[in-house]
């Protein structure tokens, strides 16, 4: 048995517990918990039973299990980056609206200074 077959399941369990804890603290949605749990279960599955990746690979017409895992990781990373980009973009827009409102409601007069 390789070391990664032990390490990845441990990391997966910690990660899933962490997401569940955050859910109970109200910091995560249930969808996030479910999606990340599926992800970490799949990671553990691939670590313990590497041959499972070949079965999945063949489903998508990919010959090697390792190729499938690499492609899967790229897809997940791309999705994460894209999602973060949209979150940041929305936050920037909200920030701009807020900053504009603050400025518009507070015209600077010389009286402010003299007080």
């Amino acid at each position: 048995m390789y070391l990664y077959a032990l390490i990845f399941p441990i990391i997966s369990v910690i990660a899933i517990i962490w997401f569940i804890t955050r859910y109970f603290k109200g910091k995560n949605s249930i969808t996030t918990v479910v999606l990340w749990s599926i992800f970490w279960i799949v990671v553990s599955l691939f670590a313990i039973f590497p041959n499972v990746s070949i079965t999945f690979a063949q489903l998508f017409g990919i010959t090697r299990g390792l190729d499938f895992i690499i492609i899967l990781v790229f897809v997940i990373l791309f999705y994460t980056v894209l999602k973060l980009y949209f979150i940041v973009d929305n936050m920037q827009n909200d920030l701009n609206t807020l900053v504009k409102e603050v400025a518009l409601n507070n015209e600077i007069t010389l009286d402010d200074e003299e007080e």
Partner: protein
Amino acid sequence: MGYEITLEDKNATYVVLPAYNEATRIEPVLEDIARKGYNMVIVNDGSSDNTLEVVKQSKRKFPDKIHIFSLPINRGVGIATQTGFEAVLKFNPKYIVSMDSDGQHSADDLDEVIKPLVTGEAQAVIGVRPFKDMPKTRSFANSIMNLLTRIFYKVNVSDSQTGFRAITVDALNKISINATGYLISSEFIREINDNNIPFAEVPIQTIYTPETQAKGTNVVVAFKILLQMIKHQF
């Protein structure tokens, strides 16, 4: 043209000046404009130097001509200009001008820039800088931006990146500006074109100093604007 800008026209005009770290340059700009009899709305874009203090000093000299708004943090020339365009509506202007506050533009051109609005010849004006007077890299970047504005926004203008522009209040209420950075120049032209607002080009002078050259459209800014133009297609 024979028409002379009157005091009444000047009183109905507000100049919007976004200012970011312009403490060393802004004072003569504001005071030149005020001496010419125009009103101003200055938007301090979260400057980290003492731009706001300098603007307040000018306001002490021209309290009725200068109105100050200040963004608590730096958000870019687009947001500062948008804020200025919204703030200016509080003062019921007829004509709104936007200018750079770094001394690149001359207050002497204000009369000529608003003249087409006052005479009814146009509802929007862009001040066209002489490209031949620009440093070569700046001229190249601006030519590229004119081409990109033509490709992405289908508008052919002589200077798509000018910060000197004027518009009537009716036309301003028709357009929608969302750009946060330097894209605002091209977006302004696109909105004018899309809303069928009659516009004119007026030649302006440009004062280039090492300081004014440090800002504005260089090749890096042009590339950023290109990315934003592509993003806005979706």
